[in-house]
């Protein structure tokens, strides 16, 4: 009561209906509603009717909607510069990552691998293959390091990949030890990730990872049967080895030093609940639901046509709904792709995920060095090169300078052409501030770095996820909204 006396009722503060629009985009959310976003991705969902009235001023908008439109910087009073300055500041925060050119460096230590995964996208080699032919040498590793330290980014992340990266642990050790020395003298912050199936894990590797705070990223496709069918290995014991090794990493280094991701094969689509239960059973608190991507040998082996984007979206929707249920029952589990997107939707931050960047994340945010010193704009570009499409091969560390590699004309031209802001359809899309341009994907699937978004699986997948997450944020119960909001990294 005392409070009521101190504050006047909201009727005393009429909302200014003489507004001006700020630059906005809109896209249909469902049959009745549209999503409106401003230049920095603040969003609001309104009826089609309200959208018409907002733009044409044909009917007055009610005060509560007007107030929300003001607060989300969709409209302003046409006088104050503050909303424009704030939007400018947020825009600047969103693109700040461009200063950190190139922060992620992926190093393929070997092509050898003990697994024979059906969906493998690179020309993996058997364990018995000659390691002098398919492993990165120390000499090449030194040249890779020289290139990494030419990047202007203050914070550098080196991610080791394969084949099975740990089969050439000597080169991993060599790179980490030398990077540490150089980082110390140059004042850089280092982060390391080893992407591994974990089968070569031993005590020496564990100790080393603990000492240098190396993060482990592994693959867990689901329960025993599914994992072993997707990821066969001699002895048919891949699942057993992976689960045992996850346990070892958790107890020796800690749960926050390991995460797993799954690749959705055609046969995974019927097992969303079982896959998630497997993550819970292994005490993991994050899962990354990844579709099979249309690159390299995954295409030529015919695995990419086993299911389409629509089916994958159904799988994603079903999985997400189960993950939310699991959270409600008290087990914290984050779906990482949703987390990246929710961060973009709900905050001014951008976590720099390579696929959701415009200008393209390939080369600007991440770059990959193959075992033989070849440099590619992204992991997907390396996979494409495996089937003869070498357009995004930027050079070789043994033959080219940093300037020649970074100044690769085809790459620069592709980045310029594929800016989402100037791509047909993307330029008008409300989801543009959350989305990206993916020249490597579109060249692989449509033979064009921009790509027709009507025919693009990349667009269909992302639009589906953006709409799903925004619908959940709008229509769900409070508990669900709270869970989704907690996944955004503020």
């Amino acid at each position, binding site marked *: 009561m005392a409070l009521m006396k101190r504050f006047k009722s909201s009727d005393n503060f009429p909302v200014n209906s003489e507004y*001006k*629009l*700020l*630059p*906005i*985009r*809109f896209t249909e959310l469902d049959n009745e509603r549209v999503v409106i976003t401003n*230049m920095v991705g603040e969003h609001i969902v309104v009826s089609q009717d309200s*959208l*018409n009235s907002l*733009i*044409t001023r044909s009917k007055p908008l009610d005060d509560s909607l007007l107030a929300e439109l003001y607060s989300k910087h969709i409209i*302003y009073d046409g006088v104050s*510069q503050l909303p*424009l*300055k704030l*939007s*400018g*500041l947020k*825009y*600047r925060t969103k*693109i700040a990552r461009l200063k950190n050119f190139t922060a992620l460096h992926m190093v393929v230590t070997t092509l050898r691998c003990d697994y024979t995964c059906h969906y493998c996208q690179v020309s993996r080699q058997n364990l018995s293959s000659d390691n002098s032919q398919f492993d990165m040498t120390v000499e090449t590793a030194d040249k890779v390091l020289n290139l990494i330290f030419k990047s202007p980014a203050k914070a550098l992340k080196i991610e080791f990949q394969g084949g099975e990266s740990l089969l050439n642990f000597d080169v991993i050790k060599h790179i980490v030890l030398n990077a540490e020395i150089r980082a110390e003298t140059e004042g850089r912050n280092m982060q390391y990730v080893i992407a591994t199936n974990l089968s070569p894990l031993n005590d020496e590797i564990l100790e080393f990872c603990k000492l240098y705070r190396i993060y482990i990223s592994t693959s867990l496709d689901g329960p025993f049967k599914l994992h072993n069918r997707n990821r066969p290995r001699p002895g048919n014991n891949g699942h057993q080895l992976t689960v045992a090794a996850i346990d070892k990493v958790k107890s020796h280094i800690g749960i926050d030093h390991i995460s797993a991701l799954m690749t959705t094969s055609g046969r995974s689509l019927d097992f969303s609940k079982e896959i998630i239960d497997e993550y819970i059973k292994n005490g993991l608190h994050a899962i990354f639901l990844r579709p099979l991507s249309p690159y390299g040998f995954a295409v030529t082996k015919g695995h990419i046509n086993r299911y389409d984007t629509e089916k994958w979206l159904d799988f994603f929707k079903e999985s997400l709904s189960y993950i939310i249920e699991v959270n409600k029952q008290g087990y914290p589990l984050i779906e990482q792709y949703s987390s990246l997107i929710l961060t973009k939707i709900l905050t001014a931050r951008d976590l720099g995920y390579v696929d959701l960047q415009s200008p393209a994340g390939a080369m600007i945010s991440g770059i990959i060095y193959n075992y033989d010193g070849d440099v590619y704009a992204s992991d997907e570009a390396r996979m494409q090169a495996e089937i003869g499409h070498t357009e995004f091969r930027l050079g070789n560390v043994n033959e080219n300078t940093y300037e020649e590699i970074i100044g690769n004309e085809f790459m620069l031209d592709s980045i310029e052409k594929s800016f989402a802001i100037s791509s*047909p*359809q993307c330029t*008008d899309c409300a989801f543009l501030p959350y989305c990206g341009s993916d020249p490597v994907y579109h060249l692989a699937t449509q033979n064009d770095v921009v790509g*027709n978004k*009507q*025919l693009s699986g990349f667009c269909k997948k992302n639009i589906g996820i953006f709409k799903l997450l925004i619908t959940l944020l709008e229509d769900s119960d409070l508990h669900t909204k709270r869970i989704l909001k907690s996944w955004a990294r503020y």
Partner: protein
Amino acid sequence: MIEIPSIDLNNKALLVVSNTTYTMQNVESASYRFTGFASFNFLEKDTEIKIEIECLPNSDLTANDIYHLLKNQLLSESLRQKIADQTETERNLILAYAFSNTALVK
């Protein structure tokens, strides 16, 4: 909008709109949304823009479906045009604030 009945012959249709209501850019942007289903041909003459719609083989939509969807899409494109016209100054100011005090803007 000037309308003449759609022709649904061999899965083709014709939509005619007034160029005082819609610009050629509106028409192109609206049609782009359906390039997965049909091919388009545009002809601007006097006060009209003629849009010939021809369905692609195996298209999930008929020419008649696209005719109606295109009409709705044209409304959206015209709203987008209005937004762009009304907010050009604001867009430039926001970008100016975003890049001020950086090496990019002197």
